[in-house]
């Protein structure tokens, strides 16, 4: 796996959290893994709970084994 690791953050309901130009929605927004903790804390300070979207274990394993396809 090359490049920066990404994580997906989402809001709980049909809510939107905006910080600068970044908008995090219920559908999920991909951010750099290194920024995720700071974003979650910024959201908490502003009264918003953000959640990390976790991939199902099987899907994650398939991606690591052959880079895609099944």
């Amino acid at each position, binding site marked *: 796996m090359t490049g920066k690791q990404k994580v997906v953050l*989402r809001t709980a309901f049909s809510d939107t959290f905006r910080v600068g130009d970044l908008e995090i929605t219920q559908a999920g927004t991909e951010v750099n893994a290194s920024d995720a903790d700071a974003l979650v804390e910024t959201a908490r300070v*502003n009264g918003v709970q953000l959640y*990390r979207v976790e991939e199902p274990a099987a899907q994650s394993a398939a991606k690591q084994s052959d880079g895609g396809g099944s």
Partner: protein
Amino acid sequence: MPGFTPTYQRKRIMAGMAALYLAPYNETSPAVLPADTVALGGTWPASPQPWTPIGATEQGITMLFRRSTQAHMIEEQMTPVGVETTEVECKFEAVLAEDTFETMRVAFGGGTIVTQAAATGVIGKKTLEISSDLSHFALGLESKNTYGFFRRVLVPEIVSIADVEQVNRRAASLRLYKVSFWSLVAPEDMDFVEKTADALP
């Protein structure tokens, strides 16, 4: 003459609070209860749908289960020959005490909150848009059972039907939001699960 006391087990008599959580309703990827390995009071899962606690309440959570029936009588028998269920009402009620937009959204039946984080020269701001249509949620409840472990309830789909009277007074009253969550699923589709013993080594 010996006294008479009916048989009972004191440790089965319980009082105690319950924690109530809401999650977005999603038909294709529904919210699930925590894994069996998650202890009482542990973190509820964030996927496939994230659970959010409803916060402080004035007098805890009340679970209501009302069954309306139709009794069938015949002339020849004084007791009913049959009793059928006509309606089942399953509700979870509380008076929410945290005065936030999140509480208002749940109390008013649904809506959308947009939060703008504070930045240089820009205030932090939230806007709430209440929806005309009811939002659907999933409901989870957790309490302590007679074994000292978790008891969890999952209602896959509920709506919030409330009669909100928010009182704004100087000191005599808190701002409170009365909510009633109505189950939209059949009784068979509600999950009740409790832990009775730890796993063996």
